[in-house]
């Protein structure tokens, strides 16, 4: 499993180094903050990309989240507090984008979903990059709550309680969102992708 939940956890001593980074960045070191951003940008960008469906939006969200992190460094004493805070900010920013999208849906997603449901050539080889694009497009077809719960559970590897805390709903509701999201996603991905892409 290559999810991002444990990024950095397998490196002994990284906790102390990051704590030191937080301290230095808080003291005004731009170099320390850049290193801190480097530690989290991949994780945040991946999460935002899955949640928003567009790389441009994901970049905007990550930039905003990291800028807010810099403005709120005084809140953190250790790295343990940085990751959940960044994740929550990222999810909230993606939610704002999802609400804006409801008013102006993206046409590009339709193209990928139509490929996934068999309107394109089923014999064509679907690369990993294309599969990822189809997965993102299919995720955009879920409700915002289903998508957030499912992505936080799978990509970030969060427990039901942690997802509930971030999304502000009960654990039972999170289970329902994940269940419905998973089955809907399967329905959207069934077809040529199931035969060709795997």
């Amino acid at each position, binding site marked *: *499993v290559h999810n991002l939940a444990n990024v950095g956890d397998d490196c002994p001593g990284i906790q102390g180094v990051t704590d030191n980074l937080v301290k230095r960045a808080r003291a005004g070191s*731009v170099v320390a903050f850049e290193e801190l951003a480097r530690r989290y*940008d*991949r994780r945040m*960008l991946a999460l935002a990309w899955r949640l928003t469906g567009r790389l441009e939006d994901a970049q905007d969200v990550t930039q905003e989240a990291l800028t807010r992190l810099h403005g709120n460094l005084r809140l953190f004493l250790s790295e343990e507090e940085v990751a959940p805070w960044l994740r929550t900010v990222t999810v909230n920013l993606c939610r704002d984008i999802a609400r804006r999208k409801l008013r102006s849906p993206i046409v590009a997603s339709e193209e990928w979903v139509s490929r996934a449901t068999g309107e394109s050539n089923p014999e064509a080889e679907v690369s990993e990059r294309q599969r990822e694009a189809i997965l993102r497009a299919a995720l955009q077809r879920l409700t915002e709550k289903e998508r957030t719960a499912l992505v936080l559970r799978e*990509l970030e590897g969060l427990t039901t309680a942690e997802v509930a805390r971030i999304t502000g709903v009960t654990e039972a509701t999170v*289970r329902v969102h994940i269940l419905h999201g*998973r089955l809907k996603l*399967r329905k959207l991905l069934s077809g040529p992708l199931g035969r060709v892409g795997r």
Partner: protein
Amino acid sequence: MSCQQWHEAIALFVDGERPGEDLAEHLERCDGCRQLLRDLQVDQAELQRAPDIDPAVFAAVRVEVLGRVVRRKIWWRWWVAAASFVTLLLATGIWPRAARKQSELIPPSQKTPAPRPVEKGTIAPGSLMSQPVRRVRIAKRTVASSRKSDPDKILSEWLSPNTRREPLGSQSEVAMRIQTADPDVVILWLKQERFQQ
């Protein structure tokens, strides 16, 4: 239990929210549900795999963020410097003195015109509020000898030609009696101007 209900059970099982003992028995008999379990597990693996992102994108994000941070720091320093400078000016009195000098440089024609002379019973616009306290004190001192509490007596004494005046040349007096809404409160405005000859 229908296959539709088993689908939910399978999704919960994949999510780790449900034990799979009773599920195994159904999966042995149902090809469709067995396929669904496989598909959901493949979906799960794809969802858990982080998307492949070009390192240039991370670099672009970092550059933008650091640019914002540095710009913010620069602005912040400018604000601190400006605030410190203003505080310093105020503390050393340079600014108030400069402001006073500036007002002295204004030609008399541009200065606020002198209040119009008032007569008994009339109120010049803004005259009550704009009268310097210093002048009122002069007037009080002039009538202090009588020490009378009746405002009408003070007025008549003030305006009487028999009242003792300091021989400083020609002078003019203006007196005004203002009755407030409270009948017990009367405001006397006494003004004396002296002209040195």
